[in-house]
């Protein structure tokens, strides 16, 4: 009996005795219990309750759903939202594909730079980037100034669907580039050369070989961006107007101002249904193509697989430069902006000062917001990391069949539209009087952050040689000792990156925090949001600059260090 404990940490052979298998699996469920309970209480039950409301409030029936399509206003909003999401994902793909392709062709240092240019906006405060667009597009702003010579000087951008579309495309671009790049990285570049040697002209070889092989990344990226755009709230709220509202804005008004959970719920459920259909379709499409990619591509080894005949052609160089500028420059306007002396968002600034930095770190409302954000972020990271790590360990002990189902369940907060999560949490916490408390925000953020921890730790566990705990046992380590000296140190990088992801998720989260805000429970992103919408407070530019710098410098350093190491050969 005691013999079984030696291998309980991880099966050595995968062929365990039935009795022990049962015990190990039982422990798997025990490890999963905390996160499953948390998810059910904080997410599933509230979601079901909102779904129920959508059928029963104010009267039982399909009234809420009928009015989605019958009252002309909502239908127009839905149509506009779907159209914007579609255009954003298509235009984004056209911009992103050549950029991602160029990333596979350039040398290590250039690649590190291009990766950084994508990663920095990926990690930078959503609000900072939207604020930057607000500054650029305002009346009398830089873009109007650029258009004036063409006689378009008094075109109003702010408040239009075009403004919303442009900034959403820029904000979501990293979500397109990264999956495309990771898909292209897998492709053996020699295949195109092989196609040419078989008689296909270069362009046709590219179209018939490279394009299908990179399709899974394109589909994954486009469907992700489409789905994210559907539930996007911050950009339309800041840059759009109620006349050109998108669905998230309407859900916001219905929820927070009208407390019409039935009507808002119906919209949210519709959004969820569209999301699930799109993701399901993309999975089927990308799945088929993924099979092709696996069959066609040898696993990529840096250096050996580059398509030698491919070079960065002039048009590709121009395109890549333009996209790189688009990804970085608009966001960077927040830095000069933050040294402005004016009480407005005027850009370029008329005079210079550091008063907004002073205000950021001394005024009571801003310091309180910073402290709240740190507090929320740290607690979210702690709870999500503990829950997610135990859950990831639990997953490895389940039968493969159950593992898939439970894993999907743990990751489900990622695919539910953000605005619907906000609505669900708002409705549930209202009943529990958690609205307006930091605890409420922490709990909601934990649900959002949990999937990132599960993914990070699981990836690490899968990469680990599952025999090692058994090896440790054969060398005299008790199960506790084997865990402490072998399993844990090996999984630790995954746990840490999960914790960082959880912290950043919380740090950057606006929509839920906006829904749950109250005096005393205002996080930094909410304070930033309010400083644009409620008052005109340029301190936001100082806050944005601090966030951009805090995020970019470590990423740039890590990428360049990685590139240098890559150049030296050994990993």
């Amino acid at each position, binding site marked *: *009996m*005691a*013999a*079984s*404990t*030696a*291998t309980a940490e991880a099966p*050595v*052979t995968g*062929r*365990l*005795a*039935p*009795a*022990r298998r049962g015990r190990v699996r039982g422990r798997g469920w025990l490890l999963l219990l905390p996160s499953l309970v948390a998810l059910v209480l904080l997410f599933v039950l509230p979601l079901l309750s909102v779904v129920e409301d959508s059928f029963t409030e104010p009267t039982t029936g399909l009234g809420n759903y009928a009015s989605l399509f019958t009252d002309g206003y909502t239908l127009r909003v839905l149509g506009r939202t779907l159209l914007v999401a579609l255009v954003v994902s298509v235009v984004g793909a056209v911009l992103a594909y050549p950029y991602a392709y160029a990333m596979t062709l350039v040398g290590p240092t250039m690649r590190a730079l291009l990766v950084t240019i994508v990663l920095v906006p990926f990690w930078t405060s959503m609000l900072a980037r939207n604020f930057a667009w607000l500054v650029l597009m305002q009346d009398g702003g830089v873009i109007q100034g650029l258009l004036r010579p063409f006689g378009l000087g008094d075109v109003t951008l702010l408040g239009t669907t075009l403004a919303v579309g442009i900034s959403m495309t820029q904000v979501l671009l990293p979500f397109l580039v990264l999956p495309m790049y990771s898909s292209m990285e897998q492709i053996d570049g020699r295949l195109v050369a092989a196609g040419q040697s078989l008689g296909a002209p270069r362009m046709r070889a590219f179209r018939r070989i490279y394009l299908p092989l990179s399709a899974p990344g394109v589909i994954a990226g486009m469907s992700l961006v489409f789905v994210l755009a559907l539930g996007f709230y911050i950009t339309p709220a800041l840059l759009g107007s109620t006349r050109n509202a998108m669905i998230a804005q309407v859900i916001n008004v219905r929820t927070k101002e009208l407390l019409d959970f039935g009507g808002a719920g119906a919209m949210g459920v519709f959004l969820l249904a569209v999301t699930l259909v799109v993701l399901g379709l993309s999975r089927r499409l990308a799945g088929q193509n993924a099979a092709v990619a696996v069959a066609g591509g040898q696993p990529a080894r840096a250096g050996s697989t580059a398509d030698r005949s491919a070079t960065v052609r002039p048009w590709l160089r121009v395109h890549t430069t333009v996209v790189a500028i688009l990804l970085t420059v608009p966001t960077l306007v927040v830095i000069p902006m933050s040294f402005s002396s004016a009480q407005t968002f005027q850009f370029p600034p008329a005079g210079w000062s550091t008063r907004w930095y002073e205000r950021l770190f001394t005024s009571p409302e801003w310091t309180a917001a910073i402290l709240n954000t740190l507090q929320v972020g740290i607690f979210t990271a702690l709870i999500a990391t503990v829950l997610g790590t135990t859950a990831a360990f639990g997953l490895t002990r389940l039968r493969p069949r159950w593992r898939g189902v439970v894993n999907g369940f743990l990751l489900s907060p990622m695919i539910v539209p953000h605005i619907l999560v906000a609505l669900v949490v708002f409705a549930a916490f209202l009943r529990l009087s958690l609205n307006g408390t930091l605890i409420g925000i922490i709990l909601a953020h934990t649900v959002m952050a949990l999937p990132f921890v599960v993914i990070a730790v699981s990836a690490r566990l899968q990469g680990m*040689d599952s*025999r*090692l705990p*058994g*090896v*440790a*046992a*054969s*060398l*005299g*380590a*008790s*199960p506790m*000792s*084997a865990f402490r*000296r*072998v399993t844990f*140190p*090996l999984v630790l990088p995954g746990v840490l990156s999960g914790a960082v992801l959880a912290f950043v998720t919380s740090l950057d989260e606006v929509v839920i925090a906006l829904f749950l805000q109250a005096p005393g429970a205002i996080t930094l992103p909410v304070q930033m949001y309010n400083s644009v919408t409620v008052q005109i407070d340029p301190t936001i530019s100082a806050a944005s600059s601090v966030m951009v710098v805090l995020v970019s410098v470590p990423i740039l350093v890590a990428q360049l260090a990685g590139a240098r190491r890559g150049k030296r050969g*050994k*990993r």
Partner: protein
Amino acid sequence: MSTPTDQRTVPQTPATRAGGGRVELVDLCKRYGTAEPPAVDHVTLDIQPGEFITLLGPSGSGKTTTLNMIVGFTEPTSGSIRLNGRDISRTPAHKRNFGMVFQNYALFPHLTVAQNVAFPLRERKVPAAETARRVGEALDLVDLGGMDHRRPHELSGGQQQRVALARAVVFSPSVLLLDEPLSALDRKLRQSLQREIKRLHDELGLTFVFVTHDQDEAMTLSDRIAIFDRGRIVAVGSPAELYHRPTTRFVARFLGESNVFAGRHTADVYEWHGRKWTVRGPATGGEQALVVRPERMNIALDEASVPTGSNTAPATITDVSFYGTYHRLELAFDDDTVGCAVLPVGAAAGVDPGARVVAHWRPENQVLVSE
């Protein structure tokens, strides 16, 4: 677990602490489900102190499961395992004190070479100074002195397996278990590590239990070989015994090459394809095959030149390959049995593919085996 300090001037290498353990497997069984056939089926084996024994068999024959039961990763369904007479069937793996070397090295990637080797000593609370000394000795033993601070991924496959060997013997276990330790290495390295393992066995005097599916490896290394087939041990013996006196057709086919004739043993002759061959000893009943090893098989160009008293079988040569010191002939016998013969370079004149020949051998060089 630290050994008492030795007062003599002899350096306390593992070799001076020689003493192999005796491992007895008694009626050992392992079933994974009632529907499946047992993975290990009533295995009984007495492994002598200091012996080098190899568990040999095709994949899925139960040899690795047996090893996993010995080391304590797998719990037997029934039967027992004894170490020096003491039943250890229920002892957890970390208290069994066996050294084990794994397939694909299984070094801890987050630890340096020295930390890997020190791992079992730290578990046994050996003082730091003694740990350092014993790690150094163990690394010297496998010719890896000076590699202490490397990480496993900075080493070649052969070096990694040497570290794994050092790690498995540094705590002076009485038995070393090796699970296909050479299968991930290329041919040349495999041969040099084979010699290394044999040398370690001689120097340390431990009991070695070696699992492999490679018959050449088993033949060159082992004192005794236990051949596994479908969960059972079908034969145990020294490599020479098993080679020259196989008891079953499976053993004859699995260990080395064979000409296997399927005929009938009646009274004092063996009937095959219309011929009557001389056999020693009476028929035992049951199906019996007649086995002749290729180097015992001679080739004549016609029946007339066959020495009297030899058994003969007409054959057609289908292929001849040259191996430097010998020729290897592929034969097709008249009942379509495929066989082979090995001839010294000078003796192969006139044998070319397509030639009709007579294969012949002395009756004392044939073995009757059960099916």
